[in-house]
C-alpha cells in the first residue's frame, strides 16, 4: 500500500493538470492515484475503458493488471490480491456484476477490502448492451445472499469518477469490506474535464493491522485488524461461518450470530461517517416539493429544479452521493416540511421505494428506461405537473 518510486514517478507526470476524458478513464486514473496495485477484470461495455486504461497505465505505475477468464474469477482474484496487502479492484457492468455476486458475499464474509466498479447498463440480461441505466441499485444492495451491509457510491461527473476511487479504497480499507462505485453508462461514457490533484494531497487510509497472534476475525472492535499473506501468521480465510481466529464453526448459533451481526454493524453503526449527500435548498425555505436524484440523473434533475425556481417555484433538491448505506436520516430530514418528493431515476423506481420507507410525504417516481437519460425538460414537466 502507499506509493513506491515507480508510482511516484508515474503520478508526477500527471498531477496538478486538467484533462478531457471519459468517466471510465477518470475512474482508472483515479484508481492509480488512490494506490490501486492490482486490477483483474473481464471486458464488458460500457466498463471496458476502465480495464483498457488500467491495462495500459497500471503497469507503468508499478501495478499489475490481469484479464481473467470471466467475472467470477476476476472477483476471486481481487480478493486474493487484497490478502497479499495490495489495493485491488475490478470493473464490470450488469451481466458481469451478476456473476460477481457470489464472491462479493465471500469478500463480505472474509472482510476483504476491495473495490468494484459497476458501470450500469440497460438490463435485465444482455439488455441494451451499449445503453446506460441505473438498474443495479438494488442488486448492489442485495445481489449476494445472506444478511449483510454494503457501501456504494454514485458519481455524477467524470471528475467524481476520479475522486471517488480514493474514497472507495479508503472506505474499503477502513471498514474491511468490498465497496462499490455504482456508476452508470452515461457518466462512464461522456468526456469532461478532469483535474488530477497534487500528489502531496493524496492521503490513503491505512489498513489496521492485527498484532502478531491477534485474532483477525473478531475481538473487541467492530473492524478487526487484518494480516497479509507472507507476514508469518497462520490464518484460515473462509466464507463459512468462523470464529474470531478464522476457524470454521458452522453449527454453533451464537458464533454465526456474533459474526454476521458484527459484519453488519461495522457499517450500520458508522453510517453517519460514511454517508454523503448534497443539498440545494430553495432560498426562502418555503418549498413543498423536493427532488431527489443520483448519478447521471442528478444533472438534468438539478437543471430542472433551477429552471422551475427561475419560474418562481420553490423546489428543494438533494443528491444521494452515497447510495448504500442508505441516507435514511438525511432523506427524512429533507422531507420534513415537504408535501411531495419526485425521484427521477433510470430504472422503474428502485430508490424511490427506498425513499418511501423513510418519509411521511408522498413519493412520486419519475422513471425512465430505454437507454436515454432524462432531459431537463422531462423532469421540469414532471415538477410543473405536480406543482400546478
Amino acid at each position, binding site marked *: 500500500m502507499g506509493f513506491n518510486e515507480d508510482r511516484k514517478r508515474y503520478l508526477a507526470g500527471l498531477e496538478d493538470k*486538467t484533462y*478531457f476524458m471519459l468517466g471510465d478513464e477518470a475512474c482508472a486514473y483515479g484508481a492509480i492515484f488512490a494506490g490501486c496495485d492490482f486490477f483483474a477484470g473481464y471486458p464488458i461495455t460500457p466498463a471496458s475503458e476502465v480495464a483498457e486504461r488500467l491495462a495500459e497505465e497500471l503497469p507503468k505505475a508499478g501495478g499489475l493488471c490481469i484479464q481473467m477468464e470471466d467475472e467470477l474469477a476476476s472477483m476471486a482474484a481481487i480478493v486474493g490480491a487484497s490478502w497479499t496487502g495490495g489495493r485491488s479492484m475490478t470493473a464490470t457492468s450488469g451481466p458481469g456484476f451478476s456473476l460477481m455476486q457470489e464472491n462479493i458475499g465471500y469478500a463480505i464474509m472474509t472482510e476483504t477490502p476491495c473495490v468494484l466498479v459497476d458501470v450500469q447498463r440497460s438490463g435485465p440480461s444482455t439488455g441494451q448492451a*451499449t445503453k446506460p441505466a441505473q438498474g443495479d441499485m438494488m442488486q448492489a444492495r442485495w445481489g449476494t445472499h445472506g444478511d449483510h451491509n454494503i457501501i456504494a457510491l454514485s458519481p455524477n461527473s467524470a471528475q467524481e469518477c476520479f475522486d471517488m476511487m480514493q474514497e472507495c479504497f479508503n472506505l474499503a480499507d477502513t471498514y474491511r469490506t468490498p465497496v462499490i462505485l455504482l456508476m452508470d453508462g*452515461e457518466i462512464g*461514457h*461522456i*468526456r*469532461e*474535464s478532469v483535474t488530477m490533484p497534487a500528489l502531496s494531497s493524496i492521503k490513503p487510509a491505512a489498513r489496521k493491522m492485527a498484532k502478531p497472534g491477534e485474532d483477525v476475525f473478531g475481538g473487541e472492535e467492530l473492524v478487526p485488524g487484518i494480516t497479509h499473506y507472507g507476514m508469518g501468521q497462520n490464518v484460515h480465510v473462509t466464507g463459512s461461518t468462523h470464529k474470531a481466529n478464522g476457524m470454521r464453526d458452522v453449527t454453533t448459533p451464537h458464533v454465526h450470530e456474533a459474526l454476521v451481526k458484527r459484519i453488519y454493524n461495522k457499517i450500520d453503526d458508522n453510517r453517519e461517517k460514511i454517508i454523503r449527500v448534497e443539498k440545494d435548498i430553495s432560498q426562502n425555505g418555503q418549498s413543498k416539493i423536493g427532488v431527489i436524484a443520483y448519478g*447521471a440523473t442528478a*444533472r*438534468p434533475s*438539478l*437543471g*430542472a429544479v*433551477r429552471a422551475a425556481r427561475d419560474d418562481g417555484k420553490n423546489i428543494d433538491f438533494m443528491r444521494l452521493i452515497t447510495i448504500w448505506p442508505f441516507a435514511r436520516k438525511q432523506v427524512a430530514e429533507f422531507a420534513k416540511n415537504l408535501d411531495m418528493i419526485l425521484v427521477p431515476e433510470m430504472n422503474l423506481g428502485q430508490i424511490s421505494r427506498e425513499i418511501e420507507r423513510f418519509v411521511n410525504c408522498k413519493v412520486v417516481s419519475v422513471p425512465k428506461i430505454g437507454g*436515454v*437519460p432524462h*432531459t*431537463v425538460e422531462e423532469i421540469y414537466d414532471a415538477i410543473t405537473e405536480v406543482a400546478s
Partner: protein
Amino acid sequence: MIIRFVGFGGQGIVLSSYIIGKSAVLDGKRAIQNQSYGSESRGGECRGDVIISDEEIYELEPVNQDVLVALTQPGYEKFIPHLKPGGTLIVDKDLVITDEKMEPENIARYAIPATDIAHKKFGRKIIANMVMLGYMNTLLNQVTFESLEKAVLENVPKGTEKLNLDAMREGIELAKQESAR
C-alpha cells in the same frame, strides 16, 4: 452551444467532436463530449456530440442541436429533424444532397467540398474532418484557434500533424472567403 457531427465510422466524426470539446476545456469553458457508433470500426453510422458552455451543463444528451455537421446522406436524413430552428447546417456538398422540405425553419445552410479538397489538395480523403473543423469553427467562433491547434496536435497520429493542421487551415480560409462574400 450543442454541435453534432454525423457520418460513417472512419471519417473522424468522434475525433472531431473530441477535438472541439478538448479545445473548449483548454479555453477554460465547460464541455461534454458524447458519442454513438456501431460495433463496426469503419463504415457504420457514427455520431459525435459536443456541448460547450460557460455555465454548469445539466443536459447530458440534448434532443436538439444548434449545429449539425453532416458528412453522409443517411446521417443528414436521420438527424436533420433534430436541428433547432434557426440552427446551422454544414454538409459536405459532394456527399450530401440537402432537402429543404426536411429541414427546420430559418436554418443557415453551408455546403463545402471538404472531402474533395482533402483528396485533391492533400491526397488524403481521411482529413476531410479537419477541413470541416476549421470551417465550422471560423463560422461559429466557439473555441480559440490556439486551443484548436493544440488539441489537433495532441490527438492526431504522429507524423500527420502538419497534414492535419494544413487541412484545418484550408477550412479556415474557405470560411473566411465565405464570410467575405
